[in-house]
């Protein structure tokens, strides 16, 4: 990734405008490099929304009652809306969301591997909402608050409103199942043990292993990976303490914040065969590579999505 120092004069002028607090509204003001980083950000985000949908679909069969089925359906409907919002923006970049969703090579879908492990129980679904919609929202909330391209901020209002709803829904039901019976309490803890590391690793490489990105240079976002990770960790741990389930963290009185246990392995690569963690420390390179390989539902989840898009035949 190029450093901020190798900016062209044109890019420097744009950065200066952005740093003075100006919001960019008109695409005529774009430089090629600004355009490229915005487009890439949108493409990754929009495709990511689609992968939440194919993942949530697998929870449907585990829903204990009609209310749970409705909750899953409405979160799927929301994710379609999230892809739509970013897709309408992508259209202005000459990128077809239809193409990105329905004609992308399923092996090249951009996703988090967790979205490619089928949901095994409704409790796992709500715990994932409580922890991972919380993680995802920090990413999109950062852009809503700080993005230099005004239309992207506006497009994310609806998305962030709904992501907050998703994690509150997850939090409510996580607490409910924690207190319902011995059995459901154990199921919540098992789900947390599986989901928590996905949340911690959500934001990728730590800052010291990363060079300045164009996202930061051009103020597409303002929070670094470590900043977002810490926001997530503090928020998730506070929630854990309130409900009572265990996380691999402790509260450090001196620092006045939650920190990971010393022996917690960072990062880890999930075992796709056992659908579990081996609790072995891996490398960030291996972890990032595992994102490209994906989970056990790749490519089947996207193949199914693409098969069932009826297109012309629907009408």
């Amino acid at each position, binding site marked *: 990734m190029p450093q901020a120092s190798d900016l062209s004069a044109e890019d420097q002028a744009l950065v200066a405008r952005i740093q003075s607090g100006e919001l960019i*509204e*008109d*695409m*005529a003001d774009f430089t090629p490099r600004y355009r490229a980083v915005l487009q890439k950000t949108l493409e990754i985000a929009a495709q990511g929304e689609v992968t939440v949908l194919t993942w949530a679909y697998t929870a449907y069969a585990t829903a204990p009652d009609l209310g749970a089925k409705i909750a899953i359906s409405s979160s799927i*409907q*929301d994710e*379609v*809306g999230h892809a*739509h*919002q970013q897709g*309408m*923006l992508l*259209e*202005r970049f000459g990128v*077809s969301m*239809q193409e990105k969703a329905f004609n992308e090579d399923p092996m090249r879908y951009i996703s988090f591997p967790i979205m490619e492990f089928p949901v095994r129980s409704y409790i796992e679904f709500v715990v994932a909402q409580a922890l991972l919609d919380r993680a995802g929202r920090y990413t999109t909330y950062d852009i809503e608050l700080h993005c230099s391209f005004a*239309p992207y901020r*506006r*497009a994310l209002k*609806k998305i962030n*409103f*709904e992501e907050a*709803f998703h994690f509150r829904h997850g939090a409510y039901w996580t607490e409910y199942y924690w207190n319902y019976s011995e059995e459901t309490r154990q199921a919540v803890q098992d789900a947390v043990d599986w989901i928590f590391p996905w949340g911690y690793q959500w934001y990728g490489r730590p800052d010291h292993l990363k060079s300045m990105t164009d996202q930061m240079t051009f103020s597409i976002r303002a929070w670094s990976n470590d900043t977002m990770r810490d926001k997530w960790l503090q928020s998730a741990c506070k929630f854990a303490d309130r409900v009572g389930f265990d996380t691999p963290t402790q509260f450090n009185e001196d620092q006045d914040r939650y920190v990971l246990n010393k022996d917690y392995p960072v990062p880890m690569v999930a075992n796709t065969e056992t659908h579990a963690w081996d609790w072995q420390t891996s490398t960030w390179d291996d972890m990032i590579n595992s994102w490209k390989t994906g989970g056990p539902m790749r490519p089947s989840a996207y193949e199914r999505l693409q098969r069932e898009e009826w*297109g*012309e035949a629907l*009408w």
Partner: protein
Amino acid sequence: MSIEESPMYEVFAREKLDGPLSHIGCIRAANRELAAAHAGMTYSEKPWVEMCVAPTDSFLRCIGDDKDVIGHV
């Protein structure tokens, strides 16, 4: 006609009876009825008291640049 060749509609909604009718998004649809249905499904994040759609090309700018239509989110 594929969805991407369909005309674009701007979506407006009102949150409270005494609040403004605000632009909340845009969609493409084959006709007006589908536009209204699609907007209602997509922008269901709040219990709006009113929602309506209008074709994007029916808008004329008073302030701002004409080549950027009102919508596009």
